[in-house]
């Protein structure tokens, strides 16, 4: 096995000084304000735990200096240098390093950073090889991050032993410039793959639920295709679970957008808020199918802003159907809403039945931010 390692040495520096990220020129301001690097300590923790484990042989490929080499040398971990980084680091360095790692045919990229780093890596590797994040950034909406540096070590060891599976994980990021002036504009950039360590205790009792995430999606889609024949107009939200529904009923899904479906036919691809509102104004009976997005499991307010408070208020809570695979739900103990309309958020909060299989649902708590 070959593991690529990328460290974003400046990730997370803005957080402590209230800068909400280190994109653009924020880094200089962060340093001026006394911020110090935090990602080297995070990746050190991961390696300390990882090398205490019984793991098969593997090799590490990494960058020079602050992007990996320094810490690997300091810890005495052998590695092959595939990218020489000089001076201050930028998104371009991360992308170049990924190109080099791809040419080495690494099996996985372990990185330490935040949403920006995840996005840069994803822009080069896509879902060709899995990526696993050690959380060190300020923004952590993407689903490729482990919950802690220690957890990353456990997942990595399991990946090397071949006893964990892969799952899809959304890459999400917000526009930092807008965020700093109070505008929260979050986007879904795509679906990466990440190693997934199912909870061992739960798995040990899952005598009948050994199916893959893909099979779970197909089961959800089969159920949805049955209840969607009720004559209502359906808004299909963002993501691969809703795509599985579209696949089954034979329509093309906009992966990063929302689509409007009626009686098995596509009414409007990549619809916006206005499209939905005009249908509502025409008196249409509308139901919304969404799945939780991102690491925290947002059902509204992350990556699906087309389904706005205006839309949600008119459609009503009873006509919202949340779908999610058991694998995904296991990783998100609670779901969240953050529509920007706090009154609406409190209406949406509470217990919700999430469709997670064929004629099957799981009760989840929905919280407001």
């Amino acid at each position, binding site marked *: 096995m070959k593991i690529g390692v990328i460290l974003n040495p400046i990730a997370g520096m803005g957080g402590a000084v209230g800068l909400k990220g280190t994109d653009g020129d924020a880094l200089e301001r962060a340093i001026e304000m006394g911020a110090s690097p935090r990602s080297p300590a995070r990746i050190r923790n991961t390696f300390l735990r990882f090398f205490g484990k019984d793991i098969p042989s593997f090799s590490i490929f990494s960058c020079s200096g602050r992007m990996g080499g320094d810490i690997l040398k300091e810890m005495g971990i052998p590695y092959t240098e595939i990218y020489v980084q000089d001076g201050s680091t930028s998104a371009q360095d991360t992308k170049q390093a990924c190109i080099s790692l791809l040419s080495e045919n690494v099996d996985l990229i372990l990185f330490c950073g935040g949403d920006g780093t995840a996005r840069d890596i994803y822009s080069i590797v896509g879902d060709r090889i899995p990526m696993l994040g050690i959380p060190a950034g300020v923004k952590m909406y993407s689903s490729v991050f482990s919950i802690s540096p220690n957890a990353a070590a456990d997942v990595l060891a399991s990946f090397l032993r071949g006893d964990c599976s892969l799952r899809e994980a959304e890459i999400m990021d917000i526009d930092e410039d807008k965020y700093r002036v109070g505008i929260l504009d979050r986007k879904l950039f795509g679906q990466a793959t990440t190693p997934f360590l199912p909870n061992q*205790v739960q798995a040990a009792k899952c005598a*009948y639920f050994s199916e893959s995430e893909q099979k779970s999606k197909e089961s959800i889609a089969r159920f949805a295709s*049955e209840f969607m024949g009720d004559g209502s107009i359906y808004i299909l939200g963002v993501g691969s679970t809703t795509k599985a529904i579209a696949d089954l009923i034979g329509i093309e899904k906009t992966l990063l957008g929302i689509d409007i479906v009626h009686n098995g036919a596509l009414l409007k691809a990549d619809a916006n808020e206005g499209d939905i509102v005009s249908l509502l104004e025409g008196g249409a009976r509308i139901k919304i199918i969404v799945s939780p997005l991102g690491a925290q499991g947002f059902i509204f307010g992350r990556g699906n802003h087309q389904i706005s408070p205006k839309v949600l208020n008119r459609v009503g809570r009873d006509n919202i*159907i949340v779908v999610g695979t058991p694998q995904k739900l*296991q990783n998100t103990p609670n779901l969240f809403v953050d529509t920007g309309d706090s009154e609406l958020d409190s209406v949406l909060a509470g217990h919700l*039945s999430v*469709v997670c299989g064929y004629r*099957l*649902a799981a009760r989840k708590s929905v919280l407001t931010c």
Partner: protein
Amino acid sequence: MDHKKIILDENEIPKKWYNVNADLPSMIDPPLHPGTKEPITPDDLKAIFPMELIKQEASTDKYVKIPEEIMDIYKIWRPSPLIRADRLEKALKTPAKIYYKWEGVSPAGSHKPNTAIPQAYYNMKEGVERIATETGAGQWGSAISFGTAFFDMECTVYMVRASYDQKPYRKSLMQAWGAECIPSPSTRTEAGKKILKMHPNTGGSLGAAISEAVEDAAKHDNTNYSLGSVLNHVCLHQTIIGLETIEQFKKIDTYPDTVIGCVGGGSNFAGMAFPFARDKLDGSHPDVDIIGAEPMACPTLTKGLYEYDYGDAVGLVPILKMFTLGHDFMPPSIHAGGLRYHGDSPLVCKLVHDGFIRAVAYHQTEVLKSALLFGRTEGHIIAPESSHALHCAIQEALKCKETGEEKTIVFNNSGHGNFDLAAYDAYFDGSLVDYEYPEELIKQSLKQLPMKNI
């Protein structure tokens, strides 16, 4: 409080099982043959069941005598104690009195041997040398292995592959009693080979294991098939539980107000409930409240439809009139594996349908929380299945706290949880998923589908 435990003498064990079929106000709808859709005849069942059990299945005699040979073996753990859960009452600050019938004292750790022993006995009496059966989580497989061991019979248990790998100690128990435990699907049967060819790495399913066991029994002249729940004769054998309980309450001049059991296939519930249903049906105790507690993930009695449906996933066994979520419903993997059945005992269903018994459903997290409270007050760490009955008893006791009523509540504590600690682990690490049955969406979807004729 006079006694913590109410214990019968061995010679006070009831000598007969009670057959509720004799007292039903209207006839139960007959099981249908899966091929002809006609009512089943004894001849249809002869290939896989002994004649005596077939007779019991259709019997309307009110009582069936327990043979001496069975009684001798019952005495290994019977009579089981009726225990006052006074420490739990104190913790709840309820004026109600809570009792539990403790079936965890059997060698296999649950109520299942109450029917495993008679099933093995009647098969042995009719010259059957070997039993083939299936087991999902391993409870029934353990009990029938224990049962056959006492009559020098061979026993082959087809255990769902995933459970076989994940619960090695259940397999060890079966082997300790001399049974053969085979992961299903196996290369032993045509059904197994066919499934393996299509899905070489499958974890198996209960449907597949049933197919293998039935095929095994049908192929071998010396072999019969055996089922651990649902059927009338299984419920009959379990009534020893409720009959003993009534005798135990007589010792303290009490008759309970509320009687509770958990419901999967329905046999442990029937065992506790039917003798009390007898007293309700004959008017001697018309007000006794009989409650079946089931998982929200598989809410057969509370959300199912009362109609004919296949008894198994693949349509091999008789079609039964029961509350059902549909034979194609695959219940999610909750920790109370023994409660994952799409239908229920037709006798239990009939009594629910006719209003003599009511049903409630709970999420597994709240159920495990109650189980922990029980463990920390009464000491026993009980099975997740039984914890549904416990949770119901606690809810009823809490209602008494509101009303000030001093009701006597009894629940069937059907088994210990020593092999179920993974459920407790999952509770501790917060990874329990509260599965539900999306009733409205299912109704909406069923409206769109052509009615599936059975």
